[in-house]
């Protein structure tokens, strides 16, 4: 194994661990109820999920296909409304998208 690969992995991995753990360890944001920081942190979750949904969907939109992404999205929404299960809705979306690709192909 080349030393520069291992060194880069260790540096970046250590930073990732610090980013994920240290704010919890030192209670960053605790006691901020009602304040600006508290309101900011309460909104981070919905903002992050919305952002990651858009970011992960953009390549499919940019690809120009309509049928498969449309079927996949409809299946996620329909199964969510039916069963209120994230697991089932996700799997249904993937199956419907694959079916859409097969139909379009």
């Amino acid at each position, binding site marked *: *194994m080349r030393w520069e*690969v*291992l060194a*880069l*992995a*260790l*540096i*970046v*991995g250590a*930073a*990732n661990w610090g*980013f*994920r*753990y*240290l*704010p*919890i*360890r030192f*209670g960053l*944001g*605790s006691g901020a109820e009602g304040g*600006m920081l508290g*309101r*900011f*942190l*309460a*909104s*981070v*979750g*919905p*903002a*992050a*999920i*919305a*952002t*990651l*949904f*858009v*970011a*992960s*969907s*953009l390549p499919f939109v940019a690809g120009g296909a309509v049928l498969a*992404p449309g079927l*996949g*999205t409809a299946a*996620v*929404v329909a199964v*969510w409304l039916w069963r209120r299960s*994230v*697991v089932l*809705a*996700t*799997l*249904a979306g*993937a*199956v419907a*998208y*694959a079916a859409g*690709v097969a139909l379009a*192909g």
Partner: protein
Amino acid sequence: MDAQGEETFTAGLITALPIGLGYFPIAFAFGVAATGAGFSGWEAAALSVIIYAGASQFLALALLTSGAALPVAAFTLIAMNLRHVLYGPALMKAAGEGAGKRHAWAWAWGLTDEVFGAALGEIARGKRFSEAGMFGLGLLPYAAWVGGTVAGALAGGGALDGWPVLEAGLSFLLPALFLALLLSILTRPQMPVIAVAGLACVGGTMAVSATAGILGGMVAGALAGVVRRGRG
């Protein structure tokens, strides 16, 4: 153990199932790309075990193969993952007072974008936060990520070429997961936050880069929440 709606280790594992299913093919693609770029299987596996952050690992391949200086490559990759600083505090705030964090040094390692979203979704659906649940949520995706990388490195290029429909379905798992998570936390008061985050993500991605779009979307959406609640 589940009588009061606490997220158990097993429940965490089940909740993490679609994340693991989504991670495996992406990690598989990473393993294929790494070996295709001249990295050994051990090097590909080490990047997944030690870094455990998808987009920055793909970028690491590009930086290392282009001969970027180590400090430049490290700084770039670290900047990409800066958003993770926000996840722990946001999760602990949602978990409420007295939420355990004794073993956070271990389970926080698994706090990726998707695991963070799934943990928040569970809390939004009334499950009580627990460290055991966080271990369950984090373990399967990490195993899938490392396992997928190793499988991809062993398989080499073109392993999924004969299965295009399967490959397509797997590629849609992550957007489907995020949409399901979004539906699980959707409330009318959150609509401005979600709309601003989505629009800022599109704008940032088109104007600068995907990384800028993600960071910009999160910050803009959270700031929208500050303004909205400040007025409320």
